[in-house]
């Protein structure tokens, strides 16, 4: 009642709208599918080609700081955002609901702390994985006098209008991880991306396993763009190598479900000769399923989570770990500060995406870190390491 009254009192005669200008949305060109099913509508041939090209591109920037490196930079002018510090930086976060985002966010907080002389306030709002809430959050942040806005969108298409509204409010917007369907942010930061990840894993698996063998593809969820692009690239690779993909299953990131699925596939086909997965969360569970069934663990990919790296080393697996580095969480802070200094930044800001292989495994495997920590955090030089990440 009180709220209703307050709202009525507050209401003004004028009509206002937060609606941004209409936006063009990306179109998808689908490639033909094969035994692996229809190609995802997320698959965009041009992006795919570009990303695979980037895998071999040389990065500019300090070699020991991959989070500051850029692949194929195209610099944009930011003079109009120049402002005296210290700054108030606001961050609309899609969610904090998985270890990857947790590690990333801690890295970001550490970066803020490292830059505390230049940041007077860091406002973080967690959308809890809800598009609707993130749209409201961004709108809310616009009323708070932020000097720069960082957005990690929950969903690409659906967050586009909100990000556009933020751009129109006149403050510099930095988007990272997932993108938006608009060019209005000053820069969009992310590593090479899903195609690169999926491709590296799929190529490794198809090369290392016996020819004509059976591959099981394990996916977390349908409909998450990062994961969809990973699978679509893997699909292209498997189709090209004429690999027999016997199953594409969703695990919901649940290790128990993963083990049951793998168990049933081993049961059904006798052997599975390769495992590809679109994220490393359930990699250990998949390995265990083979162990518990008394089978040799086939060539597989995981991610840079330490539990997987550890079992890889301990059990001497044939494995590879493409990464989607958590160090990308440092970059938006760095970029925002550069923009507020009026320095040029690259847009898009493509970060390198290293792959962990048998050769460099030892470099990334730190047995003292917790099992769900991501090795590619780029956080060892940040304040509070390692305690903050434990």
């Amino acid at each position, binding site marked *: 009642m009180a709220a209703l009254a307050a709202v009525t009192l507050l209401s003004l005669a004028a009509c206002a709208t937060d609606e941004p200008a209409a936006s063009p949305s990306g179109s998808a060109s689908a490639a033909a599918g094969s035994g692996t099913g229809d190609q995802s509508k997320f698959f965009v041939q041009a992006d795919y080609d570009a990303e695979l090209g980037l895998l071999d591109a040389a990065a500019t920037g300090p070699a020991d700081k991959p989070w500051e490196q850029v692949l194929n930079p195209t610099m944009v002018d930011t003079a109009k955002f120049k402002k005296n510090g210290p700054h108030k930086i606001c961050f609309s976060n899609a969610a904090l609901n998985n270890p990857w985002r947790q*590690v990333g966010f801690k890295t970001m907080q550490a970066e803020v702390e490292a830059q505390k002389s230049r940041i007077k306030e860091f406002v973080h709002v967690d959308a809890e994985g809800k598009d609707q809430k993130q749209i409201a959050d961004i709108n809310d942040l616009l009323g708070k006098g932020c000097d720069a806005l960082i957005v990690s969108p929950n969903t690409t298409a659906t967050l586009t209008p909100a990000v556009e509204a933020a751009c129109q409010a006149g403050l510099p917007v930095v988007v990272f991880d997932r993108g938006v369907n608009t060019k209005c942010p000053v820069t969009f930061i992310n590593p090479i991306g899903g195609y690169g990840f999926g491709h590296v894993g799929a190529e490794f698996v198809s090369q290392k396993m016996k020819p004509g063998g059976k591959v099981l593809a394990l996916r977390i969820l349908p409909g998450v763009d990062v994961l969809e692009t990973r699978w679509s690239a893997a699909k292209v690779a498997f189709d090209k190598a004429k690999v027999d993909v016997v199953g594409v299953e969703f695990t919901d990131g649940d290790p128990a479900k993963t083990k049951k699925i793998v168990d049933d596939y081993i049961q059904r086909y006798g052997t599975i000769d390769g495992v590809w997965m679109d994220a490393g969360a359930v990699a250990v569970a998949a390995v265990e399923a083979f162990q518990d069934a008394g089978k040799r663990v086939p060539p597989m990919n995981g991610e840079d989570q330490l539990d997987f790296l550890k079992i890889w080393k301990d059990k001497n697996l044939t494995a590879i770990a493409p990464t989607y580095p958590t160090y990308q969480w440092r970059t938006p802070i760095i970029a925002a500060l550069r923009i507020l200094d009026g320095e040029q930044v690259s847009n898009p800001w493509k970060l390198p995406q290293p792959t962990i292989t048998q050769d460099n495994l030892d470099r990334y495997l730190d047995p003292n870190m917790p099992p*769900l920590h991501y090795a590619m955090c780029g956080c060892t030089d940040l304040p509070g390491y390692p305690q903050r990440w434990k």
Partner: protein
Amino acid sequence: MQTVQPRSLPLRLPRVRPGGVLPILAILAVLLVLVAIRQPDFLAPSSLMSFLGRSAPIILLAAGQYFVIVSGEFDLSVGSLVTAQVVVAARLIDGDPARTWPVVLLLLAFGAVVGLVNGLITTRLRVPSFITTLGMFLILVGAVYLWSDGAPKGQLSEEFRRFGRRAVEDVPLLGRVPYALMVLVVLAVAAVLLMRSDFGRTLVAVGDNPRTAELSGVRVWRTRTIAFILSGLAAAVAAILLGGYSGVSFQAGAGLEFGAITAVVLGGVALGGGRGAVVGAMLGALTLELLFALMNFYGVSGALRSTVQGAIILLAVAVSATRSSSR
């Protein structure tokens, strides 16, 4: 008085009465036939054993849920409780084998306490259990994320994982017998005996008509609270087995509450209480697990799986519901 006719009432029929286990046995049999057609070697002792072993946690959860449902309540908190238990166990054990047993005991106590709180809020504060346990669900998920800063820490010891992952090898006839299966058998027998005991009969009576029970000297609040505690304990054991089976993760218990309730209903137990057998509930869980395995064998696409699951649940429940109410 001598002329009072014994009226023969509509019950001299075969024992397919509502709440019986016959329908679920029939469904299970059909699924087994389908499995046998598609994947005959699944029925070999060793793979059957391992299937039963990996199904043990959900079967135990269904048994726990049964106690609560038959007493006329709901427990939506079990899934989050399992997650919380696994995460707590990993953090407390942190790979140290010596801490295994103390932590196991702690988990059981934790499960019992959560059940106790659920029970007391429901019975003493008169909050509908749907709401109590929904609130508890939110609290547990929130608290465990908060406590672990959003990502599980530490790790489970091999000793801890043994219950859910290892097996007794080289058993004659059966091959490997998973520890989880042995735990399941022991607890299932205990559950059946419990339901035949005075407490069990009283529990069903409470679900059927709490007023009568109260006026017959039953402490209804106490009986129902015990049911919640049993559910909490079942969740603890399930968490130990599940954590052992698949290791620590925030997904460990996700959605298990709905799975358990579905299993219980599939097993012929009436939501609202007063009818159904614990064996039915456990068979219901087994049937669900078999259904999932069957879908893997038949290559039902991962995305369509929930459709199949939904359709079968609706069909099974609708058929039994319309039949039992044909009077």
